[in-house]
Each structure stands twice: as C-alpha cells, then as structure tokens.
C-alpha cells in the first residue's frame, strides 16, 4: 500500500480550516458536580435561614467548620485514598488510638512536644503498614484496613477502656484559645488547622507530581505502572497520608474535648467516605476534588445543624429526616449534573 500520495493536504496549506474541523468544542465538565453541590448547599442553607430562628447567625457557618474539623481532616486523607481507587476503614480507630494514647501519655507526664509528633508518627506508620500490605501482598484495601481498624481500636481499648481527661496546659490552652472573627463570632485553632489541611491537600493534588500520580493510579493503575509511574510508592504514601490525617484528626479531637477515649471517632470512617462521595469523588478512583470533600463534609454538618435547630425530632425521626435530606440532596445533585452535561 502506498502511503505518501494519500496524505491529505497538510496543515500548512489549509491550516485554519483544518484546525477548526478537528477541534470539536467540549465544555469542561469536571467542575459541574462541585458547582452543583455548592449550589445545593446554598439552597439548603437558605432554607435553614428561612425556617429557623437564629439560623442566620454567622456562627452557624463558623461552627460548621469547627464541629466538623476532625471529620474534615480525616476526609481529606480519605480523599487521597479513594482517588487511587482504595478505601481506608481504619481512620476512626486510628482516631481512638490517638486520643487515648495522647491522654495516657500526657497523664504520665510526657512532654506535650514529644507526645504530639509521636502520635502523629504512629498514625502515619499504621497507614504505611496497611499500604505496604495492600501493595506488596495485593490484599484488598477493604480487608487490610478493616484489620487495621480492629488492631487500632483493640490497642486503644487495651491501653485503657475508660475515658481519660487531659489536664496538660498546652492542650488546654490550645483548646481554650479563641479566635475572634467578628463580634460574637468565635472560632478555634482546630477549625483553622482543618481548613489549612484542605488548602494544602488541594495544592498537593493539583500541583505536585505526587498528586497527579494519585489521579493516574485511580484512573487505571495498570496503565500508570506501564507509564512508568511509581505506583507502589504512591499507594503506600496515600495510606500513610490517610493514617497521618486520622492521627491529626485524633489530636484535634483530643484538643476539642481535652480527653481521650477508646471509642472516640467510632464509625467516622463511614462519615468520611460518605462526605467524599457526596462531594463527587468517585469510589472507583481517579475523579474528584478535595473541594468536593469539603462540600460533602459541610452538607452532612448542615444536615445535623438543621436537625438540631428543628429540635423536636426523636432518634427515629432524626434518622429518617437525615435519610430524606441526604436522598433529596443526592438526587438533586444527580439531576443538576446530568442536565449540565
């Protein structure tokens, strides 16, 4: 077959026309879910304002960040894991372990500046261990991190099954430190740390090689490997990061409540996963943003706030209403994104 004479008019000759025909404009749809979520969040907030007394108080929004600071930090770590197509069930238990260990060590008069890095390191190590098992032995992330959950919570319960108050001055001071944003609107350091975590994570995901490798692995880890990306290292790093975030969450928890407890953060793994998914992160990996996770956390927090303001729901009804609100939100989100695409 001859090839040369079949070449169509090359670009030089018919340049602009050829370019035009080849470029079919496709709107960039990757931000649609986030915008939709944001929009619905605003709708939800406005209806809260319309229905409840004092809902328009700015501290409602500010408290949202503070009450969900731990969840936010944990969910940020979870986002990395989910983006690679994995899952980390151990985060809640790592929180437990961190809080109880922190409290116990502080009670034993360890210097706080030793305790802090120690527990953070421990969290990261647990994560790294899970990542290593997942990568080297090809164990399903679900089961590896479930074992991690049992291990961490088991260790926490063995350390102490009672709740332990923290009387350390540094912890107390951080806990009591008030950051006045406006008159009557106060927030605490833990909220700032959580917001920082989001910012850092967003920057890492968007601007660093590590961040992009995370997306690539989630998109197709076989291809990523063939493209010469450090798949194993990245996977382990992601679980390490999640373990670290969980430990950081635990520290924030111990600051927020100045105590440690082996059941602290029980079930938070599911909340974190839910927050990611609500924020449009795909569980199959490779798609989503930390911003989405932030919105997801705010949605779940706002639902709780609404229930709190409603104030006349018993346990049964508040579960049902949470379900209904979640349902309405997800379906609306689905419809909006579908239409926009």
């Amino acid at each position: 077959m001859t090839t040369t004479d079949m070449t169509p008019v090359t670009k030089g000759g018919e340049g602009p026309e050829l370019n035009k025909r080849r470029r079919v404009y496709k709107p960039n749809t990757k931000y649609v879910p986030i915008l939709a979520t944001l929009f619905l969040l605003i709708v939800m907030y406005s209806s809260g304002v319309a229905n409840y007394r004092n809902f328009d108080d700015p501290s409602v929004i500010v408290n949202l960040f503070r009450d969900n600071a731990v969840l936010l930090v944990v969910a940020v770590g979870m986002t990395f894991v989910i983006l690679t197509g994995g899952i980390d069930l151990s985060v809640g238990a790592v929180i437990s372990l961190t809080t109880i260990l922190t409290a116990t060590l502080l009670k034993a008069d360890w210097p706080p500046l030793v305790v802090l890095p120690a527990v953070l390191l421990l969290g990261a190590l647990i994560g790294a261990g899970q990542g290593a098992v997942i990568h080297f032995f090809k164990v399903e992330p679900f089961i590896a991190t479930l074992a991690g959950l049992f291990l961490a919570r088991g260790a926490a319960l063995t350390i102490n099954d009672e709740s332990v108050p923290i009387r350390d001055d540094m912890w107390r001071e951080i806990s009591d430190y008030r950051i006045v944003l406006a008159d009557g609107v106060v927030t605490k350091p833990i909220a700032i740390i959580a917001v920082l975590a989001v910012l850092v994570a967003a920057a890492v995901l968007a601007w660093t090689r590590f961040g992009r490798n995370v997306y690539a692995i989630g998109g197709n880890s076989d291809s990523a490997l063939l493209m010469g990306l450090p798949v194993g290292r990245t996977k382990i790093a992601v679980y390490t990061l999640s373990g670290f975030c969980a430990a950081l969450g635990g520290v924030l928890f111990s600051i927020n409540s100045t105590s440690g407890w082996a059941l602290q953060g029980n079930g938070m793994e599911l909340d974190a996963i839910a927050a990611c998914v609500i924020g449009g992160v795909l569980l199959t990996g490779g798609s989503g943003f930390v911003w989405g996770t932030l919105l997801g956390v705010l949605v779940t927090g706002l639902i709780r706030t609404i229930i709190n303001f409603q104030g006349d729901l018993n346990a049964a009804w508040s579960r049902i209403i949470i379900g209904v609100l979640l349902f309405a939100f997800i379906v609306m989100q689905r419809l909006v994104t579908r239409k926009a695409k």
Partner: protein
Amino acid sequence: MTTIFKNRLFWPALILVVMLGINAFTSNQFITIKDGHLFGSLIDILRGSAPLILVALGMTLVIATGGIDLSVGSVMAISGAVACLLISDLDNQNSLSGVFIAIGAAILVSLAAGLWNGTLVAVVGIQPIIATLILMVAGRGLAQLFTEGQIINVQSGPYSALASGFFLTLPIALLIAAAAVGLTVLLTRRTALGLLLESVGGSPTASRLAGIGARRITIMTYVVAGAFAGLAGLIASADIKSADSISAGNLIELDAILAVVIGGTALIGGRFSIIGTVLGAVIIQTLRVTVVAIGIPAEANLLFKSVVVVALCLSQSPEFRAKVFGRFKSRPAAEKVGVPA
C-alpha cells in the same frame, strides 16, 4: 496436593478447622444428640451463622455487579419489626397462618427496600455506597418508628421455631440458610444469571455493548439482597423472640462484606464465589464464638480478631505465599539494576 494448596479457599478453610478444633476442645459437648436433635457448640455455631450467611449471600451478588449494600442491617431491623408487630397483634400468637402472614409481610417490605436501593443505583445512577447509605440511616429510623423505640416481645412458638426449632434433627435456621444457598447457587449457576452478573461487574460498558440489560440485573441483585436480609432479620428476631429495632443487624454489613472478601470475591466486582462466602460467614461466626470460648478479655477481642483477619488475608495472597513459602529461585547473574552510567 499442590492444587489443594493453591486453592485460595484452602487457607481460610484450614483456619476454620483450627478454630473449630479449639471449640471442640474447650466445649463440654461439641456435637451430640439430645432431645432427638443435634446439639453442641458446633450446632450453635452453625445455627448462629445463619443470618450472616443469608446477608452475605445477597451481598455477594451485589458485590459481583460492582456494587455494595450498606442497608442490610437496617433491612433486618425493619423486617423483624414488621413481623413482630404483626404477630404481637394476633389474638393467638401461635396461629400458624398468622405467623406466615407476618413473615410474608416482612419479606415483602424487605423486597421493597431492595427495589428502592436497586432503583437508586441502576436507574438514578447514584454510587451504590451512598445510595444504600440512605436506607441504612433512614431504615433503622423507620424500624424504630414502627416499634416506638421499644423492644417488641412475641410469644409465638411457630415464629421462634424459625431460629431455635429443629427439623429432621437439624436446626431450622440452618436449613433456611442452606436453602438460600442452594437457591442462589441454582439461580446463578444453573441459569445464565451468574455469567451476566460477572460480566456486568467485570466491565459495565462492554456488557452494555454486548446487549446485557445491566439495569434490570443490577436491580434484581439488590432485591435479592433485600429479601435475604429480611429473612436474616426474621431469624435474628425469632432467636430472641423480640424485635430489637435498635441493635438488630447493627454493623452486620461490615461482617457480611468481610465474609464475601474472605470468600474470594473481589470488591470491584466480577468473579464471585458463593461457597467462599458461606465459608467466610461461618469463619466469622466461629471467630466470634471462639473469642468467648477461650476467654479473651473483652478489651482484647478486637486485637484477636485483627490477628485472625490479617492471617486470613495474608494466607490468601499469592504474593505473600510466594514471598514467604516460595522457592528462592536463583536469578540470572546480572544483579545490577537500572541505569548503567
């Protein structure tokens, strides 16, 4: 010989046998005949694993299509609540027809719950984990609403026979589970359903282009999962002769998923193994009993569990086996890695 070792269910089965051995050793009666039926800790274990087997069966099908069902525990609670409410309203709680109607109603409600999940996943297109999270939260609320947060007691012979009755010397609960296993095997291996499920789980796009009605099949798996969860709820509530809407099936989804994964079905969907799932469920129940039998302190339960789970998942990992038991082959002479200067 080698083929037995290579079978990925070999090691889990071995662990099960070891644990059963421990139980045989610690218990007064491992298996005997008493009052005309089988009796002993083995029977207790098998009977006790019936609900988990049922739930895990449904979960296997759902997971095979690449989904997940978090709502099974809530469906159990609902089904138990419906049945017990209807039975407690009977003039004669021992009337067979009344009990059957109650059971039928409970199963119908569970089917509806499954249909709801399936529709959200397959028609609305919501990620399974979040679609079923909705019912997980709201469903338990509904059950609590039905029972007004109280435990509904029933004194119905036929109903409690569901869990503690015997037929032909075998526990009825076990027979029900066995029937469900038989039915599922029949449904998936004697019809083409199994193939189509695995195909949908393996690649949804390719399946669609091969003309598979993925939507209907997906919905069906959720419906089946709902029905089996409902049945499990009935057995669980018959076991304690009451409907405990708060704790019935609480966290069973985790155990069920664990059973599925131990059984060799990957969470991303595709190939599934029913027998593996049953094995997984029995292992989990045996583990639960063993912890009590050998007197592990409550605080250390989870530590023990984590050790077993780690052992289980490592034993199933070919990579692990290769690295640990593998022959250390002599490699070609060249040992230099990477870039020659």
